[in-house]
C-alpha cells in the first residue's frame, strides 16, 4: 500500500512542516506584535509585504527565491562565500521558501489576537509594576494564546499542502526535497493511481482533521472569552 518512498516523503513533509511552524512562530510573534502596536508609517507597506505570499502564485514566489538563492543571486553569492554552497534544491532552501510562503498564515491570526486584546490589559499590567517586556510575556502572550494556536495549526497545514514552491526550489529530489504533494504528482505522471490514491486520500483526511480542530478551537475560545 505505502512503499518506502511514500513513507520517506511523509516523514520529510512532517519534518518540514514542524520546523517551518516552529521557526514561523518565532519570527511572526514579534512581527505581529510590532504590526499590532506601531503607529509608524511603515506599518502599511510592511503589512502588505507580509500578506503578499497569500495572493502571489507559488510559482512567482518560487521563481524569485530560486533566482535569489542561485549561484548568481545575492543570497546564493553569500552562502557560496560562506562555504555553504547554494540553497536551491536543498532542504534548507525548501525550509526558507516554506517560511516565506506561510508567513501571512502565521502573522495574521497572531496580529488579530494581539489587536483584540486592546490597550487596557497592558495598561493595567503597567499600573501593577510590570515592565513592558514583562507585560508582553505575562499578559499579552497568554491572552493571545488562541491566536498563536491558530497560527501554528494553519502554518503546519499550509506547509503540508504546498506544492508550487516546493517544485520550483526543491526540485523533487527523493529523500531530500520530495514531499507528499510532489510524490503524488510523480505517481500521477507515472500512472500509478493506486499509490496516488493512498497519499491523496490521506491528505484529504489530514486536512479535514485540521480544519475540524480549528473550528472546535474557535468555539472553545469564544466560550472562554464570554
Amino acid at each position: 500500500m505505502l512503499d518506502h518512498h511514500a513513507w520517506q516523503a511523509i516523514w520529510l513533509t512532517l519534518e518540514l512542516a514542524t520546523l517551518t511552524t516552529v521557526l514561523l512562530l518565532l519570527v511572526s510573534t514579534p512581527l505581529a506584535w510590532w504590526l499590532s502596536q506601531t503607529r509608524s508609517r511603515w506599518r502599511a507597506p510592511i503589512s502588505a509585504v507580509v500578506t503578499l505570499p497569500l495572493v502571489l502564485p507559488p510559482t512567482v514566489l518560487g521563481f524569485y527565491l530560486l533566482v535569489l538563492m542561485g549561484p548568481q543571486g545575492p543570497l546564493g553569492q553569500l552562502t557560496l562565500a560562506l562555504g555553504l554552497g547554494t540553497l536551491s534544491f536543498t532542504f534548507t532552501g525548501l525550509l526558507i521558501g516554506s517560511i516565506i510562503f506561510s508567513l501571512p498564515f502565521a502573522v495574521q491570526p497572531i496580529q488579530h489576537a494581539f489587536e483584540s486584546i486592546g490597550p487596557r490589559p497592558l495598561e493595567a499590567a503597567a499600573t501593577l509594576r510590570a515592565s513592558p517586556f514583562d507585560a508582553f510575556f505575562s499578559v499579552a502572550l497568554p491572552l493571545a494564546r488562541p491566536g498563536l494556536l491558530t497560527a501554528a495549526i494553519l502554518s503546519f497545514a499550509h506547509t503540508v499542502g504546498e506544492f508550487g514552491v516546493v517544485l520550483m526550489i526543491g526540485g523533487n529530489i527523493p529523500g531530500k526535497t520530495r514531499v507528499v504533494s510532489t510524490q503524488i504528482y510523480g505517481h500521477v505522471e507515472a500512472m500509478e493511481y493506486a499509490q496516488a490514491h493512498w497519499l491523496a486520500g490521506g491528505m484529504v483526511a489530514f486536512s479535514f482533521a485540521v480544519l475540524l480542530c480549528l473550528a472546535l478551537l474557535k468555539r472553545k475560545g469564544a466560550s472562554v472569552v464570554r
Partner: protein
Amino acid sequence: MTLTNRIRLKLARAQFDVDVDLHLPGTGITVLFGASGSGKTSVLRCVAGLERAASGFVRIGDAVWQDDGQDIFTPTWRRPLGYVFQEASLFEHLDVQRNLEYGLRRAARSADRSALEEAVDLLGIRTLLQRRPQALSGGERQRVAIARALATQPRLLLLDEPLASLDLPRRREIMPWLERLRDQLAIPMLYVTHSMDELSRLADEVVVLDKGRAVAAGPVGEVLAQGDLPALADEEAGTVIQGVVLECDARWHLARVQLPEGSLLVRDNGLAAGSRVRLRILARDVSLTLDEPTRSSIQNHLPGVVDAVMADSHPAQALVRVRCSGNTLTSRVTWKSVEELQLRPGLAVWVQVKSVAVIA
C-alpha cells in the same frame, strides 16, 4: 496635615486645553468631578503616566514622578500607584488569586502578603479567590480590581469612574466598600466621577473640572454649597452636611440628627444613636419662609440668613444660598418668589426641608 501631594498638568485636547494645579491631602478621597469630556480621565491618566502631559509636575509624598522642568518622567510601572479602570480590567487568563498576586509579586516591598490579606478582607472577596474573572459579576470584578491595586501597597490610589459600567443594584452593592476604603486607608485617593451621588457619598475634598479647568476646589460641603457652579446646577443641585444621630423614634420610624444650628428628622433606616451621618439635601427639596412655620406638614425647619441669590439653569428659577450657623443649604425657588419675598443677602429666613437623604 501638610499638603505634600501636588499635581500640576497642562495638556492639549481636541476641544480645549487641560490646565490644572491640584493639592491632595495625605489621606481621604479627593473627587475629580465634572461632566463627561471635561478632562477628568485625562488628568488621572497623566498622574499615572499612562499619558504624558505636555508640561507637568507630579509629586506624591517625597517622590517626584514627573517634572518637565528637570526632564523627569517615571514610567507607569515604576510608580507606586494603584489604578482602578472604569470597566473591569482583570486578567482573564488568571484566577482571582493570581490576579491579586500579579502586582504583589512585582511590587518593590515584595513578599509582604499581609497587604494582600488586608485588601481581601477590606473588599470582602475571600470566597472568590479560586474563581475565574469570567465567573464574577460586574460588582465583584470591580472589588477584585480594587483589591488587586491595594495589594501592591500603593502610595496613591486612582479610581476612574469605577462604578460607571455597573447597573444601579451593583453600585449600591459596591458603595459601602468604597466608604470603608475612605475611612480606613491611610493613602490619598483620586476619584473621577460625574455622578452627584458618588460625589456626595464618598468625597472628602472635591475639585470641579469644567473644560479642563478647575473651577472650584475644597472640602465637599463648602464646594457643594457654592451652588453657582454650572457643573453642579442641574436637577441634582444640593448640599451635603454632616451630623450626629441623637435619637431614634420607633413609633414614627424617624431619627433625629443633631446639627450645629438645630436638628432634622430623617427616615430611620436602622441608624444607631451616636453615629455620624452624612445628609444630602437637594435644592429642590428646600423652601423658604419669612416667618417660622407653625402649621405645616413639613417637619424640618431651621433658621438661617440669606447668603447669596444666584441664577439657576432655568431662567424661571434661582438658587438661594442660606447660611445656617455652620452649614450652608441651597434652595431652588422662582425669581417671582425672590421678588415677592424680597430675598437678598443678609435677610433672616426660615428654611423648610421637605426631604433629607441619609447617604452614609
